[in-house]
């Protein structure tokens, strides 16, 4: 009787709960944060971040447990392999940093603590799904799950004009990106008759023979993902959105979104479309070169640190593309390595920006950092090392990361792109050093005094930043009064990230090993 029932039942895919457990931890964490928050009232402020942190820690723990298993779950729609799990470590590290940085932020209290953290967890879940996706449908689900919470988070500080504008802008541009992506995915499906990455690969085994349908599909997919990864010329939203969004959200978005987008780019292009490599590689190489130049040149004239880091993020996306271009395992490893390093460097930089933003009347603008080396070396050092790392100076992990990318490029026959990469690094020093010079060689300028009586208007043309509106809520006001002293969690995040940057700059082998494992999941390439 039972056996008859089983055979008669619709063939359901076997669900490997153990393999899915890192995802489940994040999903449960998000929902718990939301539910618990409803019943807690004011103490949600501390409890919900704690729940989220625990859930992320659980996800990391489960990832370590599953590491090396190399599973393909849910009817091969999702790969829980070393690449996914390695990138999950990076994502979770970013998540922890973002939650710690959000803890005393105005954004979380304005938006409501439970909702804020729940959204962050769900977005994280979406990113994890995206990097693991092995199927066009999973890819799109992950993509949307990543994006929609971020639209809301960008507008979390909804009493601030800039935040709302940022959220709306991101929603519109993001939707265009999503639509483009979806159209591209549909065309790929149309051309190959499969939504499965392995199926697409099989369909393309005999080369693509100038199949227009497929080529336009690949093109549109690339454009859709390029929007998310802020690759030029699809990057225009980045500075505006980054600037307007609450800074902890910006930090989260700048790092985690990029990790997710590159994770899926690697998997899509190096497994499903690997046979079409000769067709897409020149285009990706051109995009990489354009992105490096546009990002670095755009950053030169920025006064707001968040905008500068946004443009620098665009440039970094260009560097990351270099690892994709070559279509080799070495390239994948270099990209994964650089993603991890990029995460640490940006988290350190954003932590300092957040600390300054809370303490200085200039917000995130350059004058807020003037004289920081004298007044507050505890914050100046992480920023200095993070920026030197982003520029690729030896003794930081950024140097090793760039080195690895150049190595992959030369090895793959793209030495010219390596030159573009270092030329970009040279330009980038122009703006990184401006901040460092301001911190160590500039004169200190006024911090917000605890009693906020008619603070003088910020000097210089700060047209881009809207004035900070006083008092979103009582809680927020109290927070601002406290803000002139250092917050241990922000200092902690900044220093841990800095330590990571220095550690892997001097002893990179552990990270190499991890990246090596992540890179060797693609057996179809060399």
């Amino acid at each position, binding site marked *: 009787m039972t056996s008859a029932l089983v055979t008669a039942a619709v063939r359901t895919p076997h669900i490997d709960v153990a393999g899915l457990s890192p995802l489940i931890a994040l999903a449960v964490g998000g929902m718990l944060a939301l539910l618990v928050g409803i019943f807690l009232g004011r103490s949600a402020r501390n409890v919900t971040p704690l729940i989220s942190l625990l859930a992320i820690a659980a996800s990391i723990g489960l990832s370590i447990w599953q590491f090396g298993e190399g599973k393909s779950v849910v009817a091969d729609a999702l790969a829980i392999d070393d690449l996914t799990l390695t990138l999950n470590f990076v994502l979770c590290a970013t998540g922890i940093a973002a939650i710690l940085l959000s803890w005393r932020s105005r954004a979380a209290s304005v938006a409501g603590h439970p909702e804020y953290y729940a959204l962050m967890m769900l977005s994280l879940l979406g990113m994890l799904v995206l990097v693991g996706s092995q199927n066009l449908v999973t890819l799109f689900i992950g993509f949307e799950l990543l994006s929609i919470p971020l639209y809301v988070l960008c507008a979390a500080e909804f009493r601030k004009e800039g935040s709302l504008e940022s959220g709306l802008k991101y929603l519109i541009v993001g939707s265009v990106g999503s639509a483009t992506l979806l159209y591209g995915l549909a065309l790929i499906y149309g051309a190959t008759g499969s939504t499965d990455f392995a199926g697409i690969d099989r369909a393309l085994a005999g080369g693509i023979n100038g199949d227009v349908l497929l080529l336009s599909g690949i093109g549109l997919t690339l454009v859709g993902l390029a929007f998310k990864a802020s690759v030029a010329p699809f990057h225009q939203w980045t500075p505006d959105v980054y600037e307007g969004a609450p800074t902890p959200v910006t930090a989260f978005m700048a790092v985690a979104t990029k990790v997710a987008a590159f994770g899926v780019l690697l998997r899509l292009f190096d497994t499903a479309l690997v046979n079409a490599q000769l067709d897409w590689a020149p285009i990706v190489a051109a995009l990489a070169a354009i992105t490096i130049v546009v990002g670095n040149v755009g950053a030169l004239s920025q006064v707001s640190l968040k905008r500068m880091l946004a443009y620098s993020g665009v440039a970094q996306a260009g560097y990351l593309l270099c690892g994709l271009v070559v279509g080799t395992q070495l390239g994948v490893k270099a990209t994964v390595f650089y993603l991890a390093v990029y995460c640490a460097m940006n988290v350190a930089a954003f932590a300092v920006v957040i600390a300054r933003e809370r303490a200085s009347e200039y917000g995130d603008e350059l004058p807020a950092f003037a004289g920081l080396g004298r007044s507050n070396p505890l914050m100046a050092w992480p920023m200095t090392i993070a920026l030197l790392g982003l520029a690729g100076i030896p003794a930081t992990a950024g140097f090793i990361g760039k*080195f690895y990318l150049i190595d992959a490029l030369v090895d793959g026959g793209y030495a010219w792109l390596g030159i573009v990469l270092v030329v970009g690094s040279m330009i980038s020093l122009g703006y990184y050093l401006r901040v460092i*010079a301001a911190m160590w060689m500039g004169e200190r300028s006024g911090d917000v005094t605890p009693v906020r009586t008619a603070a003088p208007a910020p000097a210089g043309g700060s047209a881009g930043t809207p004035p900070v509106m006083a008092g979103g809520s009582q809680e927020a006001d109290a927070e601002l009064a406290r803000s002139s002293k250092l917050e241990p969690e922000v200092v902690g995040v900044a220093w841990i990230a800095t330590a990571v940057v220095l550690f892997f700059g001097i002893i990179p082998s552990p990270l190499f090993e991890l990246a090596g494992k992540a890179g060797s999941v693609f057996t179809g390439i060399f």
Partner: protein
Amino acid sequence: MTLSILIWLPLVVAVFGAILGAKVAPKLAVLGSLAALGIAISFVVRFESGQDTLQFVTNESWISELGISYKLGVDGLNVVLLLLTTFLFALATIFANLREWDRPGLFYFHLGLAQTAVLGAFCAQDLILFVAFFDLMLIPFYFLTGIWGCGDREQRVRGTQKLVIYTLVGSLLMLVAAVATGVLASQQHDTDLTFALSALQELPLSEGSQQWIFLCFAAAFLVKMPAFPLHGWLPDGYKAMPLPALAVFSGVLSKVAAYGFLRIVLPVFPDASVHFQELLLLIALASILYGSAMAFSAQNVRLVVAYSSVAQMGFITLGIFALNEDGAQGALLQMVNHGLVTVPLFFIVALLASRAGGSEELKDMGGIAFRAPVLATLFLIVSLATLAMPGSANFAGEFLILLGVFDAKPAFAFFAALGVALAAVYMLRAFIRSMHNRVNPSADSREITFRDLGVLVPSVVVIVALALYPQFGLSKSEATTKAAVAQVQAKTGQLTAETSSQASEEHTP
């Protein structure tokens, strides 16, 4: 005692100094630099001359995935340079101690970091390790110039910007070139990826790849020296740098570049070195003549010394690209000589400026010797050494260089010899206008103090000692320089043999 201790000691001391604070940092830095000097002396004593192999080798795998090793070693090329570096840094640190610096912990931290980077670059026997240390050298000098530099904020910013941009253009191109060297060598010879210099010498690249890689390396080294067309950062950069930092920058960092040619470029890219020999000789010649002319016309004592460095570095480049043993030996000797005269010269600039109301312009000086005969005497000794007075070690160095060039390209040697004469002109001009001439009313001359003598006398003693016994360095380096130029000489020998055989073939029928 391994080389690692020597390299990292200054940094460790500097970190402790930065943590312990303003009171302890200066003293600790002096102790650290003297300890490093002591260790370096121990290496020189234990060094066995007459071998062309590496000694005191440390070889650990650093990044095994990329074939990068943490390989250090000493041979005839760098043993004396290590001594020079630690000696000059010790002098500069003591020199810095005579002044008050804002935030001293940070100041000595950067000085220590600089020393570690320079020593690392000299000891590195792995291409990537060398590049990493070479690039790292820039960072402390950026901070030293930007925070404690001379002049107002705008001048410092301009100085640091030019310094950083020029240097990095070279350095980063060198990074790509270095990666390409390893990767292409492993591809062209189908071996595992390695960046160890000894291995790369065995895996010569094809001539086409050698050429662009050579140009990238040459750009990096010529900027650092600086050599004539790439010296644009020099006036602003040198003017902005604080004098103790400038002394080691000019005394040691420029040597790292020259050393790079001997250590890396000649042995690893022999074909390209022969191919571009005349270009490099031309650059060297232009540097000599241009540097001399500018030093002759500069109104600022510091710039006189700065441009004289350009000329001197031109001589060193000339010797290296004679591509023979005499030239290389002379270049190496001249590196040591120039380092030894530069630090006291910049120190004297500081002393002169303090007597001329803080101005470094020649017009504000004059007649200082009148009340400061000891200072004048020491300045004269250093000047005579700089202008390569016969009997000084500099004379021996320049003589060897010219001898080497004369062997290789006589025409270049002829024009380069003019540079020797010009050196006398600009050094004596600076000496006379500052020390003699009419007593300048704005100058307030006084005798050199005992504390200042503590810095100046050791360097002058070493200059005199080396003048009496120039063999000290030469005998140690002889075997290694021979090996360093052997590759290139084989190529030049080959070329002449081929042409002569072609010629003879043409004649036989």
